[in-house]
């Protein structure tokens, strides 16, 4: 077929016009409708968030959480030590002398470090002197999970635990930067020589991975409570359970007592509550 230059130029011109014009047309027709729909909702949400008045939306299914009752811990100060030792033993957590290499699953911290956004001005003496139990908050909206480039850390939909797959961790430490609670530790050295006693049912970690509390997933599977909770058994210092089950012990306690979460204004929705 003999293509004429005139016809070719006509077709090319029409095609170019259509190509340039189509996206503009689509944008024009859709943006008006979108703006009307979105504007109101976005406006409301930002206004609420700005005032810190975002009610926590209930997530679906089981959401495991913990209440730490500091009144019990201040009555029996050795309780927290027992809980920490129980955790370290259960998970082969190494004990380093230098703080740089420190690995922490559950540890002690003073009030002003645990709750930096709560006033510590004229703090009650018992709170000021108390060692708070700190661990991973197993947030409902975990920033560490969003930061992880390999999906080595993820939220288990089944129970809301923020878990880790150490096989997949590349040690980039983005999650450590993302976690607002300092709940993650990096293995700067081979941890093995610093583990005093092995639990033969649990692995250790290797140099170059990040680790943290796993809410004792492996113990829950056996129908046991987390190691720290078990160490405080009978005292009510640590209560563990499903935050979405209105009949659970933890919810009964939260309904009755005033509890605070660490830095709730960030919107990470921590699952660990403190009764101060």
């Amino acid at each position, binding site marked *: 077929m003999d293509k004429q230059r005139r016809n070719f130029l006509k077709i090319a011109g029409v095609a170019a016009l259509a190509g340039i014009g189509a996206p503009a047309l689509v944008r024009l027709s859709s943006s008006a409708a979108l703006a009307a729909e979105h504007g109101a909702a976005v406006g409301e949400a930002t206004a609420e968030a700005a005032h810190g008045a975002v009610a926590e939306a209930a997530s679906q299914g089981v959401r495991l959480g913990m209440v730490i009752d500091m009144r019990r811990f201040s009555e029996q100060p050795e309780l927290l030590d027992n809980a920490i030792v129980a955790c370290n*033993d*259960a998970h*082969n957590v190494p004990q380093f002398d230098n703080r740089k290499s420190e690995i922490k699953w559950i540890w002690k911290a003073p009030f002003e470090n645990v709750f930096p956004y709560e006033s510590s001005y004229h703090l009650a003496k018992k709170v000021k002197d108390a060692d708070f139990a700190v661990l991973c908050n197993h947030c409902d909206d975990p920033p560490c999970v969003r930061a992880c480039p390999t999906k080595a850390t*993820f939220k*288990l939909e*089944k*129970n809301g*635990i923020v*878990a*880790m*797959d*150490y*096989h997949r961790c590349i040690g980039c430490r983005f999650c450590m930067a993302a976690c607002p609670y300092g709940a993650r530790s990096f293995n700067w050295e081979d941890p*093995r020589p610093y*583990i*005093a*006693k*092995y*639990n*033969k*049912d*649990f*692995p*250790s*970690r*290797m140099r170059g991975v990040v680790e943290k509390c796993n809410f004792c*997933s*492996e113990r829950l*599977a056996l129908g046991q409570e987390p190691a720290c909770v078990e160490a405080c058994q009978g005292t009510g210092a640590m209560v563990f359970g499903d935050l979405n089950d209105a009949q659970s012990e933890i919810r009964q306690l939260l309904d009755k007592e005033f509890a605070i979460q660490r830095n709730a204004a960030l919107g990470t929705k921590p699952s660990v509550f403190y009764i101060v």
Partner: protein
Amino acid sequence: MYNKGTIIPGLIIFVLFVTFPIWFNGFKAGTPPKPELPPGGEKKCVESVEYMRANHMQLLDEWRDNVLRDGNRSVVTVEGKDYRKGLQMACMQCHSNKEKFCDSCHTYAAVNPYCWDCHLSPKEAASKEETR
């Protein structure tokens, strides 16, 4: 062909050189490894011998994903005995000697799986007093 006198002997030397590992070992692949059978006398594994021989690495990967990612920690039952999914909790319960079982083939095949960077071999676990 030009330079026949240098090219052909050169080629022969080259072929002999690259096949050195083959003829030096007498055209044999060495003694095949004999991984130790469970010292406890267990006869049945979670899958057939052929399957385990070819696919134990895939099975371990599946177990890992089941346990860590899907939260499915269901037990595996073999001849009435329950095993929890896991290298330390299932495999090493019977194959209690890593050096004579795992390493015998892995060394022969020159593969270096990094399982033991984190997982505790029975020997390593026994080297430090157990928690429970």
